[in-house]
Structures are given as C-alpha cells and as structure tokens.
C-alpha cells in the first residue's frame, strides 16, 4: 500500500512535532494509526528518525554515516583499545561498553564490577569516536603512508620508509627528520614534519605523540579526530595545524592548534573526574591547550585570534624575533577551585624548544587570578609570599645574552620582584638578573654582581615597565629603563656582568627568599601583573615601540609617563 502525497507530508509534520516535543495526544494517535496501517508510512517515519539521529550524532562530533556506531566486524581479542575501556570480567565486552560512555561505564561497573580504565588522552564523552576507533579490526588496514621525504626513521617506530605501506591501528611512525603524509581510509590526510611521532588509531583517527602536524579533512571524513596528550581535536570539515610541545618534566604538554579552513572542536580535560570541556574554533582562529596534571584545576583556553584583533592594534608580538617568554593573565591560566593560579602557560609556542610554563604547586603560595583587575583585563594579584616559577631551569642562557623585558604591573612600596633568575642559592649570590621595584618605590634592574640601575618614580599604579640590557659589545654594556614608552633617565653604562640561570626563573618572588628564608615575606611582590614579555636580544626602537604600544592599547594605559622624581 502506497502512501499518498498528503500522507507523506503528514508523517513528516507529525514526526517533526514528535522530535520537537510538541506532539499532542491527538497527533500521537494519528501518527500511530498512519504507521500501523501503512508500511510505507512506517518506512517514511523511520527514514525521518534516522535523519534526525544522524544529524544529532554529526553535531555531537560523531562520525556521520557508517561510523556513527561502527559496523565493522570486530576482533575484541586483538582490539588495541580494549584495554582503554572498562574491562568486563563477568564476560562482558570492553568494546561493547566502550562506546557507551560514562553512563554505561558506571552502570556496567556497578553490574559487572568492571574496573574503570579511561582513554589515555581522549575525552570520554565522545562516544561514537571511541566506537569508531574500537570498531576497527587491528588486523585491517586503515591508512596508508602516501609520502615520505628525506626521512630519518627511529627504531621506536614500527613502520618503515616504504611509501605505499598499508597501516593498521596501532602502527607508529616515528622519525627524527623529513616529511611524511599519512592518508587515512576515511580520506583524511595528515602531514608531519620531523621530529615527530604519530600513531594510526583507526580509519578516521590518529594520535600525535610528538611534533607538528597538518591535517586536511574532506567532507566525507568529518569527525576526524587527532588525539594529543594535551587534548583532543575533532574535525568539523576543515584544515588545521597542530604543534605539540612537551616540557622537560615530561608531565605537561601543550598543543597549539590553528584552524586554516572550516572549524574544529577542541576537547580538553576539565577536572580529575575526566569531564571535558569542548570549544569550537573556526578558520583564522587558533588555540593553545595544555594537559593538566594537577588535581582540582581547570583549563583555560586561548583564542589567538584575539591577539590579532583590532582592539590589540592587529599586532601579534610573536612576529618580533627573539621572544622567549610571553605570559598573559587572560590567556592559558590554570586555576584551582579558589581561583588561585596553579600554572600560566608560555604563549610563545613553536620558537621555544620547550614550553616555559610557570607553576605553583603549593596552594597558599599561589597568586590570585582576577577576571577584571585592570581596565577590564585579567591580572594576577600577588600578596605576600606568592610566586610562580618554572619547573626547571630555563633553556634560556642569560650568560652573555642581551635582554629586553616588558611587564604590565603595579606594586606597593619596598623591593618587590617582578621576574628574576638566580645562579646559586648562596645569600651572597648576585649572579641572577632581577627586574624589581626599588626601596624608594622606583624601578630597578640588576644583573650579576655589578649592575644595578634604579629609576625613581611612583610605581603604585599600573604601567608598562620595561628594561633593556644591551650586552652586544663587551665592555660597552648599557641598561635603560622605561615606563609607558618613555625612557626613565639616561641610558646607564654598566660593566660586564655574569648572569646565571641555574635555578628556575621566578615571577613575583626572589628565589633566595623562597629557598633560604621560608617565613620571609620580603622581596615578594605585593601588586598585580597582567603581562610579561621577554626577548633574548635588544629590540630596535621601532620594535620596542610596537610592543609598548600593543601593551598600552590593550590595557588602556595612559601614554604619558608618571612624573619623574
């Protein structure tokens, strides 16, 4: 029996009402009758339901079409992800319950005394992606090495240099140099530049363990997932780049994601319960995500597009060569539940070999994060014995390098530290560099045992403060201090100095006070910091002006300097 055209329309209208929650009793009875009396009506209804379901899953970042739940034959025993899903000792299948997500895991755990194991890196709410991955038989080829140029392969990988090699789930490509392209069976292509390590997880999924990656995803592969230790990138039909960085401690990763076309979703761990937050980024936008190893912290995202907005003068400070540290209170700041800062991520990214992320493990030593501490912009507020520092010594070697430092800050009186390094922990050690306030409420820069330049002026309001230590010509070193773009006094000729950096760079405190005087609150910052930028060279006058202009515009600071004393 064929449905009339009017019946077809009526089925759709009723189905629409059902799924929009507006179906009344009379309409429900009508839908019931039409479906019962006409097999074609039932088919139409199911067709509509399927469309609705597919759209739902597609927009919940699940692979549209076949992989929504995965139909491929399975081989549980060989499944590489079996160990990442809850085990099912009572005979249940880890694969079956893997895709069901948190709710089912909890349920299965209760029912089957399952041991809860989690995906190593991925968000747990992305059920179908996990499903897609587990649906791949480990013995089936899911990707191909389509290009390998000038590659120096590592023994830690299990794929050779043969272009055209078929790749199975779990195959690892690890190489020190060169360029490769992997084409997944879904059509998604990834290009990696060595040093890099990439694991093929499935026909539409991969794991970036190290290095830089560019992905190009055709429409039929929407939902392509790149896992990284820092977070998960879920394609929405696009091209994007990922650069993964690992700090020296090995327990923190940052991934810079830049969307060049279309959009991606980024899923990041939200808390220790493995809940995730998901954010969407469109072409022209970028994000920095970081793994979190501290319990009870939240993750902040960084939208690099804002850096280039007209509000900031359409200027990206990283375009100036030599930037080594860039910290901003409104970007990539990890906080605990009390709003205190556990970690602030270095925004410089790829030009540094490792991320110079400043941390504070001790709860009572964490500065407070203020959402709108300075003209609507965020600040870090230090009060007493609070500081942030690198986990290890910086890769920066200050021994004979010039420095240009900018801080947006205010402080109360006495000697207070914005940023400093330390060579040893001897009380007599003077081999670090220190950018501080002075006893008389001025600005001070010290380097080694012999350099000290102080310029007095009221420092109890927010300013762009900068110091340039020029050591390009031995014996003709100079230091100049600036406030809001105006030089404070004369450029000071200073003797050669030895600066060491054996101890971690510190913000808001003096390493010596931290280590040797555990109860001291002297030499700690009482004030706010909004942004810190450090270059390993002397900026030209124009470059300096651009940075200062960027900072003053951004924080809406008055261009005229405070009156010199």
């Amino acid at each position, binding site marked *: 029996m064929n449905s009339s055209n009017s019946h077809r329309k009526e089925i759709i209208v009723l189905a629409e009402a059902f799924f*929009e929650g507006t179906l009344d009793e009379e309409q429900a009875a009508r839908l019931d009758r039409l*479906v019962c009396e006409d097999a074609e009506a039932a088919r139409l209804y199911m067709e509509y339901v399927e469309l609705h379901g597919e759209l739902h899953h*597609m*927009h919940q970042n699940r692979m549209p*079409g076949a992989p929504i*739940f995965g139909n491929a034959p399975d081989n549980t025993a060989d499944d590489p992800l079996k160990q990442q899903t809850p085990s099912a000792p009572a005979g249940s299948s880890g694969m079956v319950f893997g895709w069901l997500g948190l*709710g089912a895991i909890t*349920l299965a755990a209760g029912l089957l005394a399952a041991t809860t194991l989690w995906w190593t890196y991925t968000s747990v709410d992305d059920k179908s992606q996990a499903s897609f991955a587990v649906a791949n038989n480990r013995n089936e080829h899911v990707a191909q090495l389509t290009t390998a140029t000038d590659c120096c392969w590592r023994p830690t990988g299990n794929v050779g240099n043969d272009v055209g090699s078929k790749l199975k789930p779990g195959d690892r490509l690890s190489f020190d140099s060169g360029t490769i392209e992997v084409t997944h069976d879904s059509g998604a292509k990834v290009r990696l530049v060595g040093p890099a390590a990439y694991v093929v997880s499935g026909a539409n999924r991969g794991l970036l363990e190290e290095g830089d990656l560019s992905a190009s995803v055709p429409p039929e592969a*929407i939902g392509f997932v790149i896992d990284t230790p820092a977070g998960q990138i879920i394609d929405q039909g696009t091209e994007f780049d990922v650069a993964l960085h690992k700090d020296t401690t090995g327990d923190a990763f940052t991934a810079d994601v830049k969307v060049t076309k279309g959009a991606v979703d980024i899923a990041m761990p939200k808390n220790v319960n493995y809940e995730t937050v998901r954010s969407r980024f469109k072409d022209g936008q970028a994000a920095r995500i970081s793994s979190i190893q501290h319990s009870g912290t939240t993750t902040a995202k960084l939208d690099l597009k804002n850096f280039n907005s007209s509000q900031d003068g359409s200027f990206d400070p990283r375009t100036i060569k030599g930037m080594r540290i860039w910290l901003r209170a409104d970007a990539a700041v990890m906080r605990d539940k009390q709003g205190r800062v556990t970690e602030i991520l270095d925004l410089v990214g790829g030009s540094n070999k490792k991320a110079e992320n400043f941390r504070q493990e001790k709860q009572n030593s964490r500065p407070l994060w203020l959402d709108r501490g300075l003209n609507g912009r965020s600040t870090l507020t230090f009060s007493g014995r609070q500081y942030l520092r690198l986990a290890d010594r910086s890769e920066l070697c200050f021994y004979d390098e010039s420095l240009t430092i900018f801080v947006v800050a205010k402080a109360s009186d006495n000697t207070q530290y914005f940023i400093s390094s330390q060579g040893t922990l001897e009380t007599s050690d003077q081999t670090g560099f220190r950018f501080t306030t002075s006893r008389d409420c001025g600005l001070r820069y010290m380097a080694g045992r012999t350099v000290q330049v102080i310029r007095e002026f009221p420092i109890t309001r927010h300013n762009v403060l900068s110091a340039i230590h020029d050591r390009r010509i031995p014996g003709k070193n100079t230091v100049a201090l600036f406030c809001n773009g105006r030089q404070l006094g004369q450029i000071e000729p200073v003797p050669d100095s030895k600066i060491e950096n054996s101890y971690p760079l510190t913000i808001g405190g003096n390493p010596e006070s931290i280590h040797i005087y555990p109860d001291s609150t002297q030499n700690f910052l009482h004030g706010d910091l909004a942004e810190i930028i450090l270059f390993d060279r002397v900026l030209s006058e124009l470059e300096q002006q651009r940075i200062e202009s960027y900072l003053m515009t951004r924080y809406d600071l008055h261009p005229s300097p405070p009156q010199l004393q």
Partner: protein
Amino acid sequence: MVDTQPTNRIKHLVYQEERKTRFTSLFNAHKRGLFTYLLALTGDFTAAEDALQEASIVMWQKFPEFQEGTNFAAWARKIACNMGLRSRKEASKRLPIFSSRFLDAIAEASMASEEHRDRRGKALASCVLKLSQSDRELLTHRYGNEGLTAKDVAKTLNRPANTVYKALRRIRASLLECVRRTIAREDQP
C-alpha cells in the same frame, strides 16, 4: 583425572571468550539500527541512548538464550523495546503512548532500513555541506547542544519560534531529498 579440572576451566574460558566475541560482533553490527529504533520510540536522544545502554547489558545477560541462526536484530529489538518503554516512563517530559502495533511496525521498518544505512549516512554528510552557511549554523544550534529543541534554539537566537520551526523543517526536508537523490544517482548503472 588430575588434569580434568584445569582443562575444563580452560575450555570454559575459551568458550566465554568466543561468546563474548560473538556477542560483540552482533551487537556492533546492529547497534545503529537499535538506536534509531529506540529514537523512534522515545523521540529523545538522551532517552534513546540511555535505553540502549541498559539494553546492551540485558542483552549480554540474556545472550545465552539467543539461538544462533535466528534473527539477532529482532531478538535485540524486543529487549530494546522494553528498555525504551521503561525509559519513556522515566523520562521527565511527557511522551506519547503508542500502540503495540506501532511498536511492531517501526521494528519491522527499522530492520528493513538496515540496508544501505552507511551509504545514507555518507550521503547525508555531503548533503549537509551543500547547505548554506546560515542553515548549517541553525543545525549546529539545534543539534550541537544536548537536549535543545527548536523552541530552545529560537529563544537562544532571539527569533520567533515559528520561524525556527519552519526553517528546520525546510532544512530537514531538503536533506532527505538530497540523500534520496544521491543514493539514486549512485545506483544508476
């Protein structure tokens, strides 16, 4: 005799493993269809997913009762149907009551629609990309957030609810048509 017990235990373990693999294979092969069936019953994504989660566990428990060679899809739908009905009862919002004939009819239609499901899914993905930017954004509002209805979307966008209803209906109708055309084109010799 001494070796009998361990041998039996190993045999049992092997049997359990084989059974697990078999169940997993069958379930994975049918779970998309089962979900669509539950969605047709409940009209609610969350309720359908919850019901399928529960159903999967019950299916595994009852799997020894399943006779190899019989219709797994039909067997699984019976269990899923019970879970779907229970889920409807537990749902906070009021859901319509359908007759048992309705349940049977959509179970039948659901099984019949298993064929070419993957092709339709892929076709839909390409059809979505053919939509205008504004239509895609509207779909994202409607489906990108768990539990939002067209009414919620209208509120979010500060647009009349009726306008959003109509727009979504138009988009879905065009997608259905696009999928049909795509499949038909592929089937042409």
